[in-house]
């Protein structure tokens, strides 16, 4: 595993799988809202954001595939890996829940992703820097969108407030994984490929606290944080998602339209 022989190729491959898988899985979760959004504008917005994430994922997995050098394509990585080979954060694979849960998850991730992409524009790896320069433009309006809904729901009716607070409470134990560095993160930071994960925490806290205050949301206490996604130890939800996401590619390998 990469932890044992952290060559630069392994680090780049593992790091790009993380970038790609977070956005592929979250994009897929968001796409589940297509045709089911609470209002038409929101249905369109969630589909747009899902598409941005799928595009970012495709780009990151292209870089991963090139780093791997095994002749696999981005599509091969997306559709022909098993759950234990996925490197996404646990938070992105949780079922979409109600609209409040979707918005809360989105906001907590967007506030992380926009700062990560901003920092990655200075990556020593030019393929990551150019991916980030593009993604940060999209992440900036993603976080504006999810923060706006946080305030609308949190500062809305008793019902919307309760649902949002419950969602934040349920999600909180999955937020720590964004900032817990492991040997891959440390190797990526040492090589100048990525910022140290801990440097993003303060920036994330500032946005989260600001929006929580405006949304009348109480920040849960930091207690136990779940982790495992980065090393392939996933929740039971990922397998079901992959079964649906990968079925067409696996049933008809090489199909085109």
């Amino acid at each position, binding site marked *: 595993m990469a932890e044992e022989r952290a060559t630069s190729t392994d680090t780049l491959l593992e790091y790009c799988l993380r970038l790609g898988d977070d956005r592929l899985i979250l*994009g897929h979760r968001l796409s589940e809202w297509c045709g089911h959004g609470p209002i038409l*504008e*929101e249905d*369109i*917005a969630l589909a*747009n*954001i*899902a*598409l*941005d*994430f*799928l*595009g*970012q994922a*495709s*780009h990151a997995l292209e870089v991963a595939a090139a780093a791997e050098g095994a002749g696999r394509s981005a599509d091969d990585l997306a559709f022909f890996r098993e759950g234990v080979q996925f490197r996404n954060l646990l938070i992105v694979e949780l079922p979409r829940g109600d609209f409040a849960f979707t918005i809360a998850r989105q906001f907590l991730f967007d506030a992380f992703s*926009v*700062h990560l992409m*901003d920092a990655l524009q200075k990556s020593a790896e*030019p*393929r990551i*820097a*150019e*991916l980030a*320069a*593009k*993604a*940060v*433009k*999209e992440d*900036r*309006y993603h*976080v*504006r*969108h999810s*923060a*706006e809904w946080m305030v609308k729901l949190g500062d809305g009716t008793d019902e919307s407030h309760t649902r949002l607070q419950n969602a934040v409470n349920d999600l909180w134990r999955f937020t720590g994984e964004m900032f817990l560095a492991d040997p891959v993160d440390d190797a990526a930071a040492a090589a100048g490929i990525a910022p140290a994960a801990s440097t993003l925490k303060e920036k994330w806290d500032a*946005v989260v606290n*600001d*929006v929580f205050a405006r949304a009348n949301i109480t920040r849960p206490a930091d207690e136990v944080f779940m982790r495992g996604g980065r090393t392939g130890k996933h929740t039971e939800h990922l397998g079901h998602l992959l079964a649906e996401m990968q079925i067409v590619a696996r049933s008809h390998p090489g199909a085109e339209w």
Partner: protein
Amino acid sequence: MIANADLLEILRTVKDPEIPVLDVVELGVVRDVREESGKVVVEITPTYSGCPALQMMEDEIIAALKAGGFPDVEVRKVYSPAWTTDWMSAESKAKLKAYGVAPPHVREAEPLIVLERARHTVACPYCGSSNTEEKSEFGSTACKSINFCNSCHQPFDSFKSI
């Protein structure tokens, strides 16, 4: 030796499938075209990461060059510098407006996160009124937002400025 101007002329016949008044050159998707050891190399960049029209533009670029007598074509994707609406010419913006889409404005420097944006005035492409409002930052394609004109009561698309 093939003149780049001839190649560009062919590429200008390929339109954005979502906004057919703009061609792929003025949209800024085509970054370079040149002859390289007997074949034509076209460099393209995506507008948005997930824009589904990119593949279609790539296919149409290859088809147009083939029809123009250049059977050996390679399309390469480039990502840097990242695509921006700031590349769009005044002439292209006028075409968008005539098509019913409010054109993008030149962007000003902004902090990384702007949660409550002071809205840039977007003139209605139909009546010219600046009494308009943005209904959603997300429209029928990744590159457009949904707006409404309070003067002529017409909903309209606006090309996002990124």
